[in-house]
């Protein structure tokens, strides 16, 4: 259940291939890639910088994956999150989950993204046509994470 926080870009195809490599129990692989858009909250975005809390980030991501593993019958999971300076169309995050059946891997993948959005210590600073600004947390993200409560 690897977790990586890095400045470098990642190769989605290579990561997914490695995650499922040679395991014939795997019938389903769900994945999500988050990308930098050129617009946010109505303003053009020319670049962004991602700051994080080294140490806590890895712990938080590992805990989120652990929680997903307790909730669903999955085989493996991977989270890679980039930090530093990023431009529109750049990849930000990859979440991938393998398992025997699609219901479980879809649910676990979405759960990990929702929890990552509200519990992993990353912060985005955007450069827009109106200047630089820290991105505000979205209430929709809290709601997305809340729906996983029993």
């Amino acid at each position, binding site marked *: 259940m690897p977790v990586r926080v890095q400045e470098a870009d990642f190769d989605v195809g290579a990561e997914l291939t490695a995650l499922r490599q040679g395991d014939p129990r795997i019938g389903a692989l769900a994945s999500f890639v*988050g990308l930098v858009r050129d617009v946010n909250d109505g303003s053009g975005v020319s670049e962004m910088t*991602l*700051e*994080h*809390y080294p*140490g*806590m980030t890895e*712990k*938080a991501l590992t805990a989120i994956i652990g929680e997903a593993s307790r909730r669903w019958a999955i085989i493996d999971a991977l989270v890679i*999150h980039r930090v530093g300076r990023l431009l529109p169309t750049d990849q*930000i*995050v990859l979440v991938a989950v393998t398992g025997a059946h699609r219901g479980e891997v879809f649910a676990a993948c979405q759960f990990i*993204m929702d929890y*990552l*959005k*509200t*519990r*992993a*210590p*990353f*912060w*985005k*600073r955007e450069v827009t046509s109106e200047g630089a600004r*820290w*991105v*505000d*947390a*979205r209430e929709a993200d809290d709601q997305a994470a809340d729906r996983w409560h029993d």
Partner: protein
Amino acid sequence: MKTVKILYFAGLRERVGQGCEQLELPAGVSDVAGLLALLAARGGRWQGLATIRNLRCAVNQEMARPDSPLRAGDEVAFFPPVTGG
């Protein structure tokens, strides 16, 4: 003496003008709320710290609450709601 390490992130780091500090806690300060009151009492750019809406805190890299206790050597972090992904 109870010394803690304090970290500030993102917009909060810019607001207080520093990313980290070591602080000796006076005898009466035993939890996160007490530490926040101590910092706010510095005045100036620190003043609003105890009343910021949605301020988040972690102690030893776990999410904490106002009544979370503080011990010597703890790492305390203050930051805004997270916006990764």
